[in-house]
């Protein structure tokens, strides 16, 4: 068929052992590699180029490194041997310098060229640092990489008072990490509430109250205008003593490499449902990609993107149709879930329950009888149920809508309840896997199921399931259940 009518003859020459280059050794880049290796072991010739010196680690758990409850080895996602066994040429501390689309090669910063049949751009994002006077002082840190986390952790040894610029998800996690190191911590947020992108005022107020209880002070509607070696100045003129400052004021997609190559970019690198960019043979995934107008920053949709891209690179059918953003905050002692829109549309309904005695806040946003969005603080069983309702669009049962509903009462036995939402691992799977393998530790369960390897917020539940399993023959089950770790204020 001629090109005149727009469709070329479609036969595709089968590639033997295609060369796949993945730019970016972050979690999304690794997940692409995993997807390719899983589908076709030792088939593709894979090269991974990354700016950071370490192999891929779980960035979501960096706050634990900061808190010194984990070291780098604990958050490493794959041992070095895995890359070798999988035939992956891993180039750490080697940034990509340019993409030549015409010649299908990637140039790296040390002058090597990497020819590709398929290129996956997974350059992630970089921290956004507002133009604050003093932001380059040595006690001011960003919070993105292992180097950042280690630097903050070292600085925390010598510091007493910390200010975190940014009261979003990342800022609060950094703050909690510092708090656990015994620092006095204040989070400063420009918006009028914490986690303004995710929470309504009621939910944010409950969160602030809970954080206060843990010893974390938050100031909202305020911004840091100047940083001095021993203090910061706020927009109202008042000053806070601070010998350690962490800036966690949001991220920007890393699109420069793609843009300079001539690939279409808006807020992120534009991709279609197969994660293909405007350039033939080039895919983009993760925080650098913009899909149907959305640049995702949470792991669950990014993991899905990576799996789809991996399949697509191999010519397998796959599609990413977008995802509802749902998130959990992982600060020990606080269980917070947010998903979907936080306010009802003109015809929608909202049900809000707030109980400061029990530290419980619940907001259900309804479109008709369907759950459209939810905020759930400190009701983990309800949160699991809400995740399912958001996913399926099923009718919300009347019982759930009652203000005092004990929503999770019957959830304990629900095998289908998703425990690890990042990797979609159900309670039933976990119970079965733990029992079959007689698994006794979280890392072993993680290895077998991937549970806890995403945001890690389900670790407590997994520990509980392990404890339950190991006490199966025991008469006193309760005694062996683990309490969530308490944070030292």
């Amino acid at each position, binding site marked *: 068929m001629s090109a005149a009518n727009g469709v070329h003859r479609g036969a595709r020459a089968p590639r033997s052992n295609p060369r796949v280059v993945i730019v970016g050794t972050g979690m999304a880049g690794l997940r692409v590699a995993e997807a390719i290796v899983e589908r076709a072991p030792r088939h593709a010739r894979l090269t991974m180029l990354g700016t950071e010196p370490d192999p891929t680690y779980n960035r979501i758990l960096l706050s634990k490194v900061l808190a010194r409850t984990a070291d780098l080895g604990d958050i490493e996602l794959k041992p070095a041997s895995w890359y070798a066994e999988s035939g992956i040429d891993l180039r750490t501390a080697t940034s990509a310098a340019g993409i030549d689309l015409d010649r299908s090669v990637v140039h790296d910063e040390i002058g090597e060229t990497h020819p590709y049949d398929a290129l996956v751009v997974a350059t992630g994002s970089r921290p956004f640092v507002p133009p604050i006077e003093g932001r380059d002082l040595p006690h001011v840190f960003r919070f993105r990489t292992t180097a950042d986390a280690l630097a903050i952790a070292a600085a925390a040894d010598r510091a007493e008072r910390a200010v975190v610029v940014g009261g979003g998800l990342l800022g609060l996690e950094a703050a909690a990490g510092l708090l656990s190191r015994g620092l006095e911590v204040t989070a400063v947020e420009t918006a009028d509430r914490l986690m303004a992108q995710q929470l309504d005022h009621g939910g944010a107020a409950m969160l602030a109250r809970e954080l206060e209880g843990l010893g974390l002070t938050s100031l909202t509607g305020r911004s840091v205008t100047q940083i001095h070696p021993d203090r910061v100045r706020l927009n109202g003129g008042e000053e806070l003593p601070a010998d350690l400052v962490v800036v966690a004021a949001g991220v920007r997609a890393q699109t420069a490499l793609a843009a300079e190559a001539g690939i279409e970019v808006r807020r992120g690198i534009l991709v*279609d449902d197969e994660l293909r960019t405007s350039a033939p043979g080039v895919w983009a995934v993760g925080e650098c990609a913009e899909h149907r107008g959305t640049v995702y920053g949470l792991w669950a949709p990014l993991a899905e993107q990576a799996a789809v891209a991996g399949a697509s690179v191999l010519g397998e059918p796959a599609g990413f149709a977008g995802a509802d953003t749902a998130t959990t905050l992982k600060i020990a002692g606080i269980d917070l879930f947010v998903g979907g829109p936080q306010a009802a549309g003109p015809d929608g309904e909202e049900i809000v329950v707030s109980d400061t005695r029990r530290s419980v806040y619940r907001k259900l946003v309804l479109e008709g009888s369907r759950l459209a969005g939810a905020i759930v603080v400190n009701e983990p069983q309800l949160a699991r149920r809400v995740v399912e309702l958001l996913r399926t669009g099923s009718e919300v049962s009347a019982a759930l809508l009652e203000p005092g509903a004990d929503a999770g009462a019957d959830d304990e036995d629900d095998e289908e309840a998703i425990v690890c939402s990042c990797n979609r691992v159900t309670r039933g799977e976990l119970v079965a896997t733990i029992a079959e393998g007689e698994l006794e530790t979280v890392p072993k369960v993680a290895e077998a199921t991937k549970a806890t390897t995403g945001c890690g917020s389900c670790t407590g539940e997994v520990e509980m399931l392990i404890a339950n399993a190991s006490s199966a023959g025991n008469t006193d089950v309760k005694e062996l259940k683990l309490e969530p770790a308490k944070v030292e204020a």
Partner: protein
Amino acid sequence: MTTTTLPTDATASLGEAATRTVCPYCGVGCGLLARTERGRLTSVEGDRDYPVNRGRTCRKPLELPAAVHARDRAVAPLMRLRRDGRFHAVGWDEAIGTAAASLLEIVAEHGPEAIAFYISGQLLTEDYYAVNKLAKGFLGTNNVDSNSRLCMSSAVAGYVGAFGSDGPPPSYADLDVADCLLLLGTNTAACHPIVWARIRDRQAEGAFVICADPRRTATAEGSDLHLPVRPGADLALLNAMLHVIDAEGLVASTFVARHTSGWDETVAEARRWPPSRAEEICGVPAADIAAAARRFAAGRSMALWSMGANQSSVGTHKNRALINLCLATGQIGRPGTGPLSLTGQPNAMGGRETGGLSQMLPGYRRVEHAADREAVERHWELPAELAGISPEPGLPAVELFDALEAGRVKAVWIVATNPAVSMPDASRARAALERAELVVVQDAYHPTETSALAHIVLPAASWPEKAGTMTNSERRVALMRPALDPPAQALPDWRIFARLAAELGWPEHFGWADAAEVFDEFAALTAGRVCDLSGISHALLERSPGIQWPFPARAAVDGRAAEPAQSRAEGAATTSRTLSNASGPGPDEGPGPVRLYEDHSYPTPDGRARFEPTPHRDLAEQPGGELPLVLTTGRVANHWHTMTRTGKSPALTASDPEPFAEIHPLDAASAEVEDGEPVRIVSRRGQSTVRARVVDAIPRGVVFAPFGWGALHAPAGAGGVNAATHGASDPVSHQPELKAAAVRIEPVDDGRTDVAARLEGRLRDTCPADPIASRSA
């Protein structure tokens, strides 16, 4: 958008916006109520006033909201310049314009036979009619075949051979009064659950249920007598049953003498099959064969079957053998009797009526018959400058994909089906699509394993977004009513064909205002045919719980629509007894005759039903050597076809979350695989990785695996089960033998997947030569 007004009494109990419609899944055709709210489907439940299911449903339709509102619905026409490039959203004008220009170019260069349409039993009658009219009439290609070819074309061939016409003679109402039900090759409990529920009701009243199936399925478990027939040995079993009926003087001699032909040759073949000989071949104890035969001959008996009979290289003969049993014992044309094929898809029957297979034309007509072609051409007002309908049958499904692979067919337009997963020898089907110059996929979802291979993807409306009709397994024409608007740019399939036709230059011939007009044009074409539904209209269906054909125009005028069919009277007393099991009075069975051939006048040249000898033949691919096992494929209760919809529901997926194979403990031991471990099923053509379920419900030497998991639903790299099946087909029905391929089972110990093996070209080296791969197309 309008919501159908229900009768006042029903509306009162329905409350909020509910639309009365029928189920889009299997051929049972249950009535459903779809509740909507603010443009979303909120819940689905069984319609208590519908005679087929009386409020009951299986699990699948209840989970339709997850499927209807799934994120991967196709919502805009997509196009791409190269198959390894990315899709771009384009408008309908550009998509249809490009597709039309490409088709015309290919027709000009290679002739009309270089284009093909591969359609689906999921389509509504109106959709089927529109595409057949366009392709066979206006484009001049008979290469229009349906996935029903893989499902029930052997039943068509069986009915046509025995009775002179397609059309299942009995109805579900007959189940309620039968004394003996012979089920062969049907896991009714899993695949037609509501028919099974009616069978169980009748069984509780004393009916005897016989199930012939290699596996001890849920259906076999629930039966009074299980005949564990070896795969491919049904004809030995059925011949032996006829042998017993003959030998023990149970033949309905008067009926046979008056109303049939071919008895002598047929019984001569049967006499070669004493049960003791059959036992050696089919594995069923001779005493059980005899018991089954006696039961079947004794009272009012029905034969029911499904893919186990149809998906076979002797599928037509299996159908004939089942009908032979009915004819020999006079089990036809009376309440509680007859051969009833259970269709897999919701509108396989409507597809047959509209000429949805490559040799057929609307009204059960055939392309080879000049009179049939002329009647249809006249009705279609084919422009004189067109060549007209070709007298050559088009390519049936397997041959169509062979022709694509060979390059004889250049363009394929695939509608509402997923051949990359469902075709036998699926990697070959996929390769065929990769070779095609133009692949258009018209579907409600994207990507599917098939649309991922397309140049153009056209978004189709799905249930419950469009109006139209479907015919279920018992000839009941039912109205699908729209309850929602299609998402974004999606259109009903018939409208897409009408747009294509207009673009190709025939707007006035396809200028229907709505689906009711399409139906009227089609229905008029059935006047005087066996499947006469010329008295049916959307308007009449609005007031009926479905109408069973034949229902000629005069029936509507006579007021039969309002009265129960005359033919019901005979069985009325017993029927009503069963209906009283339901709470309150049972629903009206609806208008139209319950059964065909009550006068024993058959549409054959001599008016007699025909026997046919059905000699046993071995499987196309006999197990042995390195491939010692027979793989038989099928479905599971909670998943449908290739899972495009059921795979969206966590509740449905939970029961069988991943592909599996049932393996006999001794076979598992020899293959050194254990229960719960991943195993590879390996055939000459390909392989698939599944989880082993070591069970004694399957006989030694047989492996069962459901076929529904394709690349999008199976674990990464696992491959689909149809990679292992083959396309050797029945010579009459051209239905492939999906139920039996020679395989071996291997433990998965090296972490390799079939994808890797295939890519490295290792596969064919490790297997013996493939006699089927060289089959002629």
